[in-house]
């Protein structure tokens, strides 16, 4: 199943946290690579593994450890699926407001390790803002805990933050404690079809400086959502609103007035089924379909929020067929290009140059496996702080067995 990414590796499935430590300790003794895998939804992130080793499947490590719902925290094993977590929380009218594509496969540990998030990040933030503590097995097979189970904690170094986005290269996450939030009373969308991409610029500027605090500001170009009311438009802006009903109604009014001032039509959607379908659509939009992987290059481009549209225009110039999902409030653009494997490297270089001209950065999030993009093409050139990161890597994984060659480290 994983041969295109981990050629020649065997697979081991674990069901208890203690087994993770045993497997890693054995691998440490043999200096054999360990490739931790949760729901296998983000394997496109990172270079193809250079050395055969053991793919460590964590999806069976899926127990709920503790859910004191009145404290608004939950502790679960790392292999728990995001959909299972959501189900568990919804029984208490709570949720983790981090949207992740393929939630029925994606695991909590994988979401932390790959630092995944979706459209709601504008209002609610990312994993960084919700993760309270972790249990982790380091590269020698020893287990350690970080943080705690309380919502404020200033004791010692914040190794929890260090693990977020570390892509399994510092340790294998076995358990996580998260802060959760009450489910808002109401959720609705204002949808704005745009005659041109540039037209988004002034609308976004006026939204950002208004009293409106949307949950999401997603600009979709190219491939459209199934719920899009006007697929003929050049682009569509989805303004997601969440709060008490009275506040959402007020925000709907305000958003529509701001659109009118820009001479733009706005469509309201407040039917719960449709609203849920849009949230799903905006979240799933980020996933590259397996049947398209062989010919798709996906990148994540980050700029200052006010430069989002300028960056989107540049990407559109490279390839008018490209699909873009812009988290316009955050300056994050996910872009997909149809691309032959042999052209992928050159396309990344051009995109990265354009991003740098706008003061931004680019990371490749998926690519045709055949193109065998190397680490520096995928992650971009490192800054001087890489020295500190490499020292941390050596401290946590002295034999270099954790996900070698996939992330920024060798």
């Amino acid at each position, binding site marked *: 199943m994983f041969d295109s990414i981990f050629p020649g590796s065997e697979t081991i499935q674990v069901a208890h946290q203690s087994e993770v430590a045993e497997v890693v300790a054995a691998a440490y003794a043999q200096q054999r690579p360990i490739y931790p895998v949760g729901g296998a939804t983000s394997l496109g992130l990172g270079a193809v593994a250079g050395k055969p080793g053991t793919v460590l499947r964590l999806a069976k490590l899926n127990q709920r450890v503790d859910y004191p719902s009145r404290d608004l925290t939950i502790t679960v094993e790392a292999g728990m699926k995001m959909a299972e977590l959501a189900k568990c929380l919804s029984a208490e009218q709570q949720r983790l407001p981090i949207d992740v594509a393929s939630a029925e496969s994606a695991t909590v540990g994988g979401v932390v390790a790959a630092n995944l998030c979706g459209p709601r990040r504008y209002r609610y933030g990312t994993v960084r803002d919700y993760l309270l503590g972790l249990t982790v097995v380091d590269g020698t097979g020893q287990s350690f805990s970080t943080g*705690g189970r309380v919502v404020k*904690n200033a004791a010692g170094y914040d190794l929890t933050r260090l693990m977020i986005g570390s892509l399994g290269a510092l340790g294998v996450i076995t358990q996580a404690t998260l802060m959760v939030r009450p489910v808002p009373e109401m959720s609705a969308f204002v949808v704005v079809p745009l005659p041109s991409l540039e037209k988004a610029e002034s609308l976004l500027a006026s939204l950002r400086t208004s009293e409106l605090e949307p949950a999401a500001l997603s600009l979709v170009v190219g491939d459209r959502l199934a719920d899009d009311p006007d697929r003929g438009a050049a682009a569509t802006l989805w303004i997601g609103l969440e709060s008490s009903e009275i506040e959402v109604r007020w925000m709907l009014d305000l958003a529509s007035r701001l659109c009118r001032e820009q001479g733009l039509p706005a469509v309201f959607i407040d039917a719960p089924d449709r609203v849920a379908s849009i949230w799903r659509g905006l979240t799933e939009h980020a996933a590259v379909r397996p049947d398209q992987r062989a010919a798709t290059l996906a990148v994540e481009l980050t700029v200052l929020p006010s430069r989002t549209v300028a960056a989107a225009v540049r990407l559109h110039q490279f390839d008018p067929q490209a699909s873009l999902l812009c988290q316009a409030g955050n300056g994050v653009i996910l872009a997909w290009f149809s691309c032959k494997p042999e052209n992928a490297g050159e396309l990344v270089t051009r995109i990265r140059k354009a991003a740098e001209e706008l003061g931004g950065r680019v990371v490749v999030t998926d690519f045709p496996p055949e193109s065998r993009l190397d680490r520096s093409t995928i992650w971009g050139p490192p800054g001087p702080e890489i020295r500190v990161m490499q020292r941390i890597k050596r401290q946590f994984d002295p034999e270099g067995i954790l996900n070698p060659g996939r992330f920024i480290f060798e």
Partner: protein
Amino acid sequence: MKKPLTRDLRRCLGATSVLSELGDLRVYDCDGLTIEKRLPDAVVFPATTEQVAEVVRICSRHDAPIVARGAGTSLAGGCLPIGGGVVVMLTRMKRIIEVNVADRMALVEAGVLNLQLARALTGTGLHFAPDPSSQIACTIGGNVATNAGGPHTLKYGVTLNHVLGVEAVLGDGTVMQLGPLGDRAALDLTGVLVGSEGTLAIVTRVWIRLTPNPQDYRTLRVTFDSLDDASNAISDVIASGIVPAAMELMDQGILAAVDEAFQFGFPADAEAVVVIELDGPSVGLDEQRDRITEICNRHQAREILQASDAQQRALLWKCRKMAVGAVGRLSPSYCIQDGVVPRTKLPHIIRRITEISAKYSIRIVNVAHAGDGNIHPILLFDERDADQVQRALAAGKELLEDCIRCGGSVTAEHGIGIEKISLMESLFAPYDLKMMEKVRDAFNPGGGLGLGKVLPSPHAPTLLHAAVSIGDV
């Protein structure tokens, strides 16, 4: 040995930016934890990042430990110059370099005061959310060092949630630029530096996330006859799904002190007052207020008053923020503790505080960021009475051990400093601490930054033993 060090520092910074006379050094021998004092060999006032880097290189050459310091409001001894060495004052680095309203961010130097930034942002519709009670004095660099909080963290989060990046000088003088853009191709070193109390690097600039000002507020003052009812009401509000901007508890003892200072008219016989603030769009606030009122009434609230205008709201917050200072009226000495428990354990821990107070015959008054489960019991004693000092320290320790037993932590926002090092081994397993040591070694291989702080080590000072020299105060 010391002479060449100060000579090199003067050559680098100029004579007026280096202090080395005994009388001058005494000013820097402690921070808000006044009970412990150590003299540095020199105090320097760099004005630029390059100067900080040069000072670090000089200290490294001379094997002199370094303590980075802002306003010195730390309550945990984070600024204590253990083993002498050089105190690097960042207070001359107080420029607000950039305020970017469109992107809701600002770049400031580490020595900018929290309040200075708040004033500079007037009219932009934005603010920096962390608002510790020391905000008139404390610096942004210090906020980053301790991952500072304040009342409004309940809704808005702590300093970590508002820092997008930093510029920092490592122990070998290397300057790192981190952020402000999120970077998938990197570890979150900024996240690790926040709360590291100056022991990993010296933060010289901070990229701050700015938060839009709320459109409106409802600020309630809820009076309870019983402390138990108050803490149960707080726990119920959290569980009900409402997220107030702030929910602050003050008990009878602290209310008496505050009233003496500000004549606010708190009822003298009530056991507790809870300040609850709601913020956001006006349209939604009355509904939330009514739900909170209902919960408080269910817990036998005696009286619920709403601040009628901005002036009344400001006065109520002034009372809360000056509360600790007002304690000086109650006692010659006091120690403010910082503990945190899961929010549902608040009623339990508040009851335990009363028991511990009786057990050690030490008066304890309470303020708390109660919505977060963050307690600040203030232990009152007379520093001149060695027996009282010992009892106060023992009471504080028992209290924090109780927080750990409840599943909490020994500090929510003040930091470990030197004060709580001995509790780290109760809070974390040996290998957890070992991993923290590894991170420190990766950032600060020589160990010269913040020597003897945060983690148990041979350099960590033995504190507050019976021989503590309080007699000369």
